[in-house]
């Protein structure tokens, strides 16, 4: 069995360090000297670099240390993954672009043509994280007023058509959300590998759609046994339908030479979070079941960083330090590798890892943690029941 490791491209700027909350990389915080990409020259003048140049550096670092590629998230105030992938297509060699995409935002046939074009431009380096939206005000911001389960119905039909036209000339479809008469990709665009579909969403509707369409079911990190149970359920459900479901975890690491150094960085980061920011924590309107599963992990009122340690090497305060899910792994290189091994033992078939700052941590995790993997797999207890 071999496991695929991906990194992540931060599409909302990046921090200099896990200890600070400012976006010193990119222009999401006010530009000042020292802010890179868009860079300022030594007189403080704009020097022509933009954030895409920094993303290029991260993608190149990730492919250099052996990550297969990276997840490219999409939210209202991020740069867009389709455009990022096109811009970086020719500046990377093996980096695979995992585009986070809400199917409702594109015509399915046009989207298939865009995907085939990107496959042709990159030699088959495109894949998708199909997302279906967290609902609430953000969904209306995007111009999408569909209700939660309808969004999954639409996603499912979208993927039917996307697959249907991929290598066909005469595909028709009569769904509740889409109809299509005699469509298909043009001959010049056919024959490309169909992009792998990773799929996220934790609700019942999500799991049903995943069982039908997903190569990988993707989850944020949850406490290990809880996650193991979720993966087992997903795999069983798909097996009952005659398919096979692989499962993947997206998780941040703070990996340092020693465990003490790792926690010291977390402690420093936690102490830099204002009381007010802590109060605001996690109060977004959303119908996301996945987000609720994360929020449920949050101890009500953490005063100290170690109030948020939920298990050995598992810290529940990441969303205080940077945007994204709450739970992540903190420890020495050996411990981080062992925790990833634990996850493999609980049914994880692939990972999307991340660390802050994404550029330097791609090298660190790639050089220090990945080589230690697999050492303890055989010594591990099998997944808890």
């Amino acid at each position: 069995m071999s496991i695929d490791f991906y990194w992540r491209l931060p599409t909302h700027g990046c921090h200099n360090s896990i200890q600070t909350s400012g976006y010193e990389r990119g222009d999401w915080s006010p530009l000042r000297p020292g802010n890179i990409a868009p860079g300022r020259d030594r007189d403080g003048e704009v020097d022509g670099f933009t954030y895409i140049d920094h993303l290029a550096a991260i993608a190149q670092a990730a492919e250099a240390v052996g990550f297969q590629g990276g997840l490219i998230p999409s939210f209202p105030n991020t740069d867009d993954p389709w455009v990022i992938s096109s811009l970086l297509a020719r500046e990377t060699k093996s980096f695979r672009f995992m585009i986070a995409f809400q199917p409702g935002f594109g015509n399915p046939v046009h989207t298939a043509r865009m995907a085939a074009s990107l496959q042709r431009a990159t030699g088959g380096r495109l894949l998708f994280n199909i997302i279906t939206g967290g609902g609430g005000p953000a969904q209306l911001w995007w111009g999408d007023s569909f209700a939660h389960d309808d969004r999954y119905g639409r996603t499912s039909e979208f993927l039917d058509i996307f697959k249907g036209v991929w290598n066909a000339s005469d595909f028709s479809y009569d769904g509740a959300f889409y109809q299509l008469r005699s469509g298909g990709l043009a001959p010049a665009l056919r024959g490309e590998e169909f992009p792998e579909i990773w799929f996220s969403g934790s609700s019942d509707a999500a799991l049903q759609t995943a069982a039908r369409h997903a190569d990988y079911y993707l989850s944020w990190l949850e406490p290990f046994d809880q996650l193991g149970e979720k993966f087992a359920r997903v795999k069983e459900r798909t097996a009952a339908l005659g398919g096979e479901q692989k499962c993947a975890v997206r998780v941040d690491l703070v990996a340092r030479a020693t465990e003490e150094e790792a926690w010291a960085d977390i402690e420093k980061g936690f102490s830099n979070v204002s009381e007010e920011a802590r109060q605001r924590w996690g109060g977004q309107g959303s119908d996301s079941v996945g987000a609720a599963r994360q929020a449920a992990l949050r101890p009500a009122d953490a005063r100290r960083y170690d109030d948020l340690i939920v298990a050995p090497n598992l810290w529940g305060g990441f969303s205080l330090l940077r945007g994204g899910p709450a739970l992540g792994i903190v420890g020495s290189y050996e411990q981080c590798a062992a925790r990833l091994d634990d996850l493999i033992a609980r049914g994880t078939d692939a990972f999307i890892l991340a660390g802050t700052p994404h550029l330097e941590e791609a090298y660190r995790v790639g050089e220090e943690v990945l080589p230690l993997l697999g050492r303890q797999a055989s010594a591990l207890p099998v997944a808890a029941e």
Partner: protein
Amino acid sequence: MTLSVHWRLDPAAEPRRSEPGAWQRLPALARDRRVSTQNRFDYFLQVAQAAAQTAFDGLFVRHRIEADESRIIAAIIARAVPHIHVVPEFPASVGSAVYAAKQATTFQRAAHDRLGWAIAPDAEPAGREAQADFVSDGDLAQRLDEFLTVARGVHRERPFSFKGSYFEVENGGFDAPLNRASFPRVYLQGSGDAALALSGRHADMHLFAPASTEALAKDIARLNALADGRSVAAGLIQPLLVRDERQTAERDARDRPLAPGTLVASYDEAAEILAGFAAIGITELVLEATPTLEEAYRIGQHLLPRLRALTSAARQAA
């Protein structure tokens, strides 16, 4: 007013070039060391480089369902080729207007505001149904109107709300830093009052099809009348077959199918005619000819200098 001159790439033209599946085998005595990483995009980039190096102002990328997608091509070009403006053509059926506008911000941020949008005409009904698009003929203009209203709206203001028949958005609008990018320059086309009025509401530039100077002058006046105070510039899409001598051009014209309205002329004549269009108020030209690469060089090297000499002389005289 200076005249901007763009080249137009048709991704479906010269379909065998740099298409790995269509490589012409070399005879056995010639060692072939082409590699699998060579692909069609090498050719698109060569055309873009040619246009940039021969001093075109921009490159349009046609919407062709039988070939690679124009916005993907445009982003790849913008990253690799400095200076020139890049204008993908696509129809309003591509999907969400908010999403299209958001994608434009990333492009603009990365490429220093060099993106334009040319809205392509919609396909005929059977073509649309094959694209999962069942909007009726009579409703296409309304969809395009809403598409541009929403795309511009979320770019311009926050919060922006709109509810139409095809697009809606509630408390939308981009935040910093995305809202610092400029909105792509919008090019619309089409003939008749309805198309001109739509340009009057939404376009930065209306692109006319080839016509005589007199007819174009009338159309420009009509465009301005319908724009109702908003300023919309006038441009022209002009296919060309130009050679050193008119006789050579006419001879070559007999050998090939030409796009409607192709200007068959010598370099000097073509420069005169195009300068004549500039004199009646055309401020952007979108030129096209095949083979796309060789003709970009030919026209960039022979026609553009003549044309620019005439238009700058006219500017100085004015």
